[in-house]
């Protein structure tokens, strides 16, 4: 709402001079509350042990140090976990982009018997809390010999219903005439999908990339179950295991945990800040009718 409205209300609200600063104050306090844990984490990661155990606690490190990071890298094989998380996230993203857009295309642009049934299946899949069904999934993966493998971490998430839904919504907007013209010119369906439709839905692909990548990066319960060998841990699993390790020395450990959390969260925050437009777009597209 802008303060300058065309129609002057007979009893104008106290806008502008009095209300605006107040509203900005409230919003800023809210933002501070939302950001406080992140600030605390970022600052604590650079604190010395004295600062970490100081009572009352100190906000700003009296001496800035990188000790927490070096101790963390000594104790935990962070590069390996980082690489594991990255490999799994990239594979999940690529397979989602391919499979979800394929089905999205079929649902949006191809007449085939059973299409509405398949779409119904996709909608149903959106509503099933998959994390409740991990017990037989573990048995299945174990039987297939996929525990402690990248395949085991990637496959259950290789094609999400949300991605299908998103791609279908976007592909519905591609004009049929365009596809018909290509068909008349003798183009095959794969060519049309690959060369005509996909380039037209790049924004949707960007949105799906972010959702799939971050979903995988932040995923916890399945990697926790599907990995026994620390060499295959993803970042969250390694971090949680370390946090719940009773042998961890508390004071030094706290700084290390803050450093570790910062390393895990920082890439996410950066990606989000740069691409936040695609997030809201994705939610708005898929969310409310």
């Amino acid at each position, binding site marked *: *709402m802008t303060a300058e409205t065309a129609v002057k209300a007979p009893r104008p*609200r106290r806008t502008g001079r009095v209300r605006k600063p107040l509203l900005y104050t409230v919003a800023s306090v809210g933002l501070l509350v939302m950001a406080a844990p992140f600030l605390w984490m970022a600052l604590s990661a650079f604190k010395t042990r004295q600062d970490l155990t100081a009572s009352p606690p100190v906000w700003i490190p009296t001496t800035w140090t990188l000790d927490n990071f070096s101790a963390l890298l000594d104790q935990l094989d962070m590069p390996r976990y980082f690489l594991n998380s990255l490999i799994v996230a990239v594979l999940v993203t690529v397979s989602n982009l391919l499979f979800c857009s394929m089905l999205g295309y079929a649902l949006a642009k191809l007449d085939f018997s059973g299409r509405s049934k398949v779409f119904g299946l996709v909608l149903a899949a959106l509503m099933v809390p998959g994390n409740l069904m991990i017990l037989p999934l573990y048995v299945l993966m174990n039987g297939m010999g996929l525990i402690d493998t990248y395949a085991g971490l990637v496959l259950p998430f290789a094609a999400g219903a949300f991605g299908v839904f998103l791609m279908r919504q976007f592909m519905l907007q591609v004009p049929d005439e365009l596809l018909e013209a290509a068909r008349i010119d003798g183009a095959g369906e794969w060519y049309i999908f690959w060369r005509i439709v996909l380039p037209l839905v790049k924004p949707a692909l960007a949105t799906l990339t972010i959702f799939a990548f971050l979903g995988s990066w932040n995923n916890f319960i399945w990697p926790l179950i599907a990995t026994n060998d620390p060499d295959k841990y993803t970042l969250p699993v390694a971090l949680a295991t370390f946090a719940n390790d009773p042998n961890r020395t508390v004071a030094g450990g706290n700084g290390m945990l803050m450093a570790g959390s910062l390393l895990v969260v920082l890439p*996410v925050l950066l990606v989000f800040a740069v691409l936040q437009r695609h997030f809201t777009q994705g939610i708005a597209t898929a969310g409310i009718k």
Partner: protein
Amino acid sequence: MSLTTGPAAHAAAVDKSPEPGAPPRRGRRSLNRHNLTGWLFSTPFLVLFGLFMLFPIVATLLMSFTDFGARHVTRPLEAEFVGLDNYTKLFQDDTFLKALFNTAYFVVVGVPATIVLGLLAAILLNNGIDRARTFFRIGFYAPVVTTIVAVAIVWRFVLDPSDGLITSLASEVGLSAPDFLGSETWAMPSLIAMAVWRNLGTVMVLCIAGLQAIPTEVREAARLDGAGAWQELRRITVPLLRPTLLYATVITSIGYLNVFEEPFVMTQGGPSDSTLTVSLDMYREGFNFFHMGYASAMAYVLFVVIMGITVLQLRLLKDNTR
């Protein structure tokens, strides 16, 4: 397999198009002319869906009627059928009943708090301020996208009684803070506070989308009639946002019914099971004690509750949009 707690759940909203995106039919000849291609394009998804979604749903149900244990992981077919034993045991199991109660507590307190704060944040950032909107929205939404394990670890320190952030703030003004995660009274509210902090951004984004669909003329008219801010909220914003709020309520409820990471990382269910949730209990029974049949029954009880809520949501939404 999609986790219903992430943004992916937003797609679960009702789709308005009556018939899934049918291109205009040009006579009978065009009907189903892409049969083979259509099915080919659907195959990868359907195979993965069958293996990693449909199979687990059916198998969980079957397992819940057996004595499935550690030795059956490699020989699943040797599990013995025990009828409804797991279910009857479940409802005599004090630990599970406590987990059920804790989960209900989490939902009953957490959901309204998340919805109200999310709505207020949306109104504030959409109607209240016009400068630096994006900046504020990023800040409010950031907790949603960050890695929950890392965030839960940070909250452990924020709440630490000896050198945590809350203690520090309290000591500034000469108060002392309780040992949040170490007391049976405070542990659950602390977890709820973190969940609210983390999830209100989702509700906010949904509500902002809803608010932007309300024509400004409606607000103008209300103001011309002398409506105050409170009346505008009660008579215009909330009624017009009803479908959005209902949808947000349901996805938040589903997420909170499933709550796992927060208690796993912050309290491991303690102190004395006061933060043990159904998901965490299921994980323990299934993967720490390998009572997999029993844990499957637990999963199914929660599954039925969640599906019930989802179906209810669809009904309510349908009534609303008419």
